[in-house]
């Protein structure tokens, strides 16, 4: 593969990002008869299993800023977030007609009930609600979860008409281990040299990962890193922030750009958590389902939708991230009406406040277009950190 300049790579990613007709995954599916595509919503599903079944995991994150919602509004009252309505809009408009199944992780009641709506509307599609365990003991939650994954594997095997073997799973685990390693490398690179890897670019790169097969995505990330390292970009006097709360309904790209424009380097975030949910490599030896189960129970990230059994550890993931990435502050960015993000926030704030970590809070919808007030707020935040911070 030739190394393209960073601008070209990003442009290719942006094209994928903007394409609501999903040309790339359609191409992938058409290339070999019998191929299947399984859509999944935030926050986390074990994509390895989908991959092992020979299918393409397709991250569905709503219709984004440029999609008008007409039919979708017939499904939801005004006080519910936008991601389910734009997702339904896409489904009704035929944009997802090539998707053979949908997975709805246990993130909140809106997405939970969306799985039911899908069952009512699309009776011929494979629909699976994926209940991650909130008990993290191997003999309890682990057993439940392993069985859940086996049900998923069996369901996909039936859908695909072929068995999904343990070897298939081990191979897919390896592929995603590799993918995750590169995601982490990109994130590490950005944290170390944020001027060389603007967040809008990193975001587009990761969004491409929602749509491309993991092997292709891994290569794309390698290419980007090399090109970004090579590019000569000026360093700016920005403050360093961790963005948290945007783990489901995505902010518009203009919001990410606006934050950086206003003087903040995003050195860590929880956008597209699925790419980095497991914090360590999953073993490729032994029972793959048990391995995935153990990985989830013992080595996964923290998010509002996941119970923290130890009150002392609440907020620790964010604090660790702030420390590891040497961040100056935190930006809570929650979608309007998002129960998980909004209910969790006061607790997380109560953890970071005593540590003197400054923060601000912004609210958005996936189609927000008023960026000026956000720039004001984040700009002021950045200035205050630069002027008043001890360092």
């Amino acid at each position: 593969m030739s190394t393209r300049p960073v601008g070209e790579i990003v442009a290719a990613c942006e094209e994928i990002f903007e394409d609501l007709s999903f040309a790339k995954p359609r191409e992938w599916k058409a290339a070999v008869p019998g191929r299947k595509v399984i859509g999944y919503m935030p926050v986390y599903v074990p994509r390895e299993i989908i991959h092992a079944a020979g299918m393409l995991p397709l991250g569905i994150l709503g219709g984004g800023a440029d999609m008008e919602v007409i039919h979708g509004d017939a499904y939801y009252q005004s006080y519910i977030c936008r991601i389910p309505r734009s997702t339904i809009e896409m489904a009704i408009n035929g944009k997802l007609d090539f998707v053979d199944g949908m997975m709805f992780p246990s993130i909140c009641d809106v997405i939970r009930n969306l799985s039911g709506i899908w069952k009512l509307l699309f009776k011929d599609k494979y629909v699976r609600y994926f209940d991650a365990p909130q008990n993290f003991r191997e003999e309890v939650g682990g057993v439940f979860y392993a069985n859940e994954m086996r049900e998923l594997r069996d369901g996909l095997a039936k859908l695909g008409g072929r068995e999904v073997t343990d070897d298939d799973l081990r191979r897919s685990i390896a592929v995603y281990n590799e993918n995750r390693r590169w995601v982490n490398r990109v994130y590490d690179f950005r944290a170390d040299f944020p001027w060389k890897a603007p967040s809008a670019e990193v975001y587009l790169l990761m969004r491409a990962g929602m749509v491309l097969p993991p092997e292709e995505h891994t290569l794309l990330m390698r290419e980007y890193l090399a090109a970004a390292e090579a590019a000569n970009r000026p360093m700016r006097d920005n403050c360093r922030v961790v963005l948290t709360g945007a783990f489901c309904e995505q902010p518009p790209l203009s919001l990410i750009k606006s934050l950086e424009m206003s003087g903040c380097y995003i050195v860590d975030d929880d956008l597209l958590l699925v790419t980095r949910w497991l914090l360590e490599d999953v073993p490729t030896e032994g029972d793959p389902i048990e391995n995935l189960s153990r990985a989830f129970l013992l080595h996964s990230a923290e998010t509002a939708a996941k119970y923290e059994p130890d009150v002392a550890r609440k907020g620790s993931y964010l604090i660790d991230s702030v420390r590891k990435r040497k961040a100056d502050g935190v930006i809570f960015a929650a979608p309007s009406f998002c129960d998980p993000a909004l209910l969790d926030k006061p607790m997380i704030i109560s953890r970071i406040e005593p540590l003197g970590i400054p923060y601000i809070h912004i609210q958005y919808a996936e189609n927000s277009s008023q960026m000026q007030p956000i720039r004001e707020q984040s700009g002021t935040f950045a200035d205050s950190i630069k002027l008043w911070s001890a360092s």
Partner: protein
Amino acid sequence: MRTFIGIDLGSTTTKSVLIDENLAVLGRGITNSRSNYDVAARVSKQEAKIAARFTLFRNALGKDAEHLLSDLERNFRLEQFLSALRQLEETCMGYLDHPRFQGTKAALRQALESVFRKIAVEAQTIYAPGAGRKSDFFRDIAGSRFMNLAEAASREAGIPFETMLNIYDKSIIDVESQVDPDETVAAQMRSGLTRSLASAEGAGVDRNEALSALGKVLAIELEETYVVGTGYGRVRLPFPKEQIRSEILCHGLGAHMMFPGTRTVLDIGGQDTKGIQIDESGIVTSFQMNDRCAAGCGRYLGYIADEMQIGLHELGPIAMKATRVPRINSTCTVFAGAELRDRLALGERREDILAGLHRAIMLRAISIISRSGGVTNEFTFTGGVAKNEAAVRELHKLLKENYGEMTVNISPDSIYTGALGAANFALRAVDH
């Protein structure tokens, strides 16, 4: 003759429709709602009856007398105006006996007299043939003229403007709550007809025939066989319970009467938006309303007009000149102004931004329609916003893009839709 009346009490205007037992519309009346809904109902009902008499008169004279009839109506309105003006003057003068005006009584009397004399003279111009008016309501016309003339008059007479305003404010309420009795109306019509017959418009019409025909029409008893009221439930309607029907049902039935093929009705009023699905008999099968949020209601456009400091009626024509329709995502009225200012500052054209804002309001309206059960051919669009060509254009586009080819019905009388349906309910109440 038996007549059936529907009265729709809206927050800004009250409408009445009078039909006969064959569902034929004889007259429509409209007045501003005022603070006393009882009065608003009576006034609009009276207006509808007046209109009914004109209709009957028109039917009696035939098509050739059209120019006479429009002249008659003009003259009648003039008579009405002058009569109300006289009442207003009398009422104002009546307040002068109050002890607080002791010192300024004489000066006030003179000032008021001069103002009213001037308005009476102006009335001829205001109601001249072909004259256009922003509003037909006495309160609006008399009020604006009074304000204008009283400023100068008060200065000349050396009395505070507020005092004259004060007296006006007290008096207008009294005058507005008066509903002329039928005899007065009849006299005004005769007098108006006499004037018209004497003028150029009266040429070619037999004077005696016309007067005799009017006499017969005035003699017909318009029996109020049944009256049904409707309107937003917020206000306690001045009718007994059996005579009230929900505005949703009245609106659905009214739309059906105007367009029997319609199945989906969208009404965008000033304060609320309704999405109504009806069946082939005009019965409502499902509905949704937005009455909590200004986005998607007429008020949204009101805010925009205020922001841009132009008249509401100017919005549409400007938006029609747009060359592109930008995507405006903030559906909240509160941010519409900010969005507007932002884009103007970025150099976008006023016409384009307005087109985008019109699309935004129609998107919200289509949301309500979606929730009410979607869009089924034929589609009827009613309410004040239906007169806005830019809004209508966006509606056509949205419907075509999302629901395919569709017949879109818009009636110039759509503001009477609710009252029309109510009148039908009145008939059904009696004739089952």
